[in-house]
């Protein structure tokens, strides 16, 4: 019984050893490395192409944002100048009204005195 077990273990160990030898690495097919490297280069180029497209889109977007900012600033300045102009015009008109009233009063006083 024990002898059989030992024989079985020995045979199994031999079998495992032969399996190791039988399962050594096989040679890769000829040109596998070259094909892998070529596909890798293609992928990198495609990726670079995709990145340049993304970069172009980013530049266009950035230009649009800058144009919008400069446009807004210009419009704001224009509106602000117009508002300031309106305010100045109002002030001039008020000053003219005050002057007019003062002149009226002076005219009345002079007329009273001459009478």
């Amino acid at each position, binding site marked *: 019984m024990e002898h059989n077990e030992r024989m079985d273990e020995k045979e199994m160990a031999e079998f*495992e050893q032969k399996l190791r030898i039988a399962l*050594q690495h096989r040679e890769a097919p000829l040109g596998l490395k070259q094909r892998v490297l070529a596909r890798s280069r293609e992928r990198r180029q495609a990726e670079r192409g995709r990145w340049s497209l993304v970069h172009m889109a980013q530049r266009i977007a950035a230009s649009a944002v800058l144009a919008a900012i400069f446009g807004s600033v210009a419009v704001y300045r224009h509106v602000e100048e117009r508002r300031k102009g309106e305010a100045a015009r109002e002030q001039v008109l008020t000053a003219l009204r005050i002057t007019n009233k003062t002149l009226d009063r002076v005219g009345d006083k002079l007329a009273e005195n001459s009478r």
Partner: protein
Amino acid sequence: MREALSWQPDFEQLVDEHQSMVFSLAWRMTGDRGLAEELAQDVFLELDRHLHRLGSANHARYWLRQVTLHRAADALRRKRAKAASLGTDLWVELEERHVLVEPVDTDDDSPLGRRIEALLAGLPESQRAAIILRYQEEMTPDEIAVMMNAPLATVKSNLQRGLKLLRVKASQTLKEFVRGA
């Protein structure tokens, strides 16, 4: 740790170094030379994309073995699903059991190796994977368990059952192999 810090991966060198390992794993798992070559190319391209995440040469080898096994399992699953949808289960099963490994007439191919591969193809997938990792890649059962994300007991049982089955098949077909060629 020092190796991880100083490791400067060179993709071409890694392909050179591991192409026969990846190809052998893929071929012995799928039993299809053409499919194995396709898988090997895909695995290396995936390595190219993930190279920056790998910290050492050992990590790269481990990663390659694991990804090759997964891709081979996926490919076998797709093959079975395709066959099932075409209603050719029986034919594929016969092919997998008897003529899965294509004969290749190259000088470096030992006839024994070819016959063992043919017998391996008849094993269930989990047993086949365990045996290939143990005897082709010289991995310990613990390492196999980690790689296959399976309990150690399952891996040991797969190895034992696979070996037994393989030995029985070998004794039926390859008398000289068992008794010592």
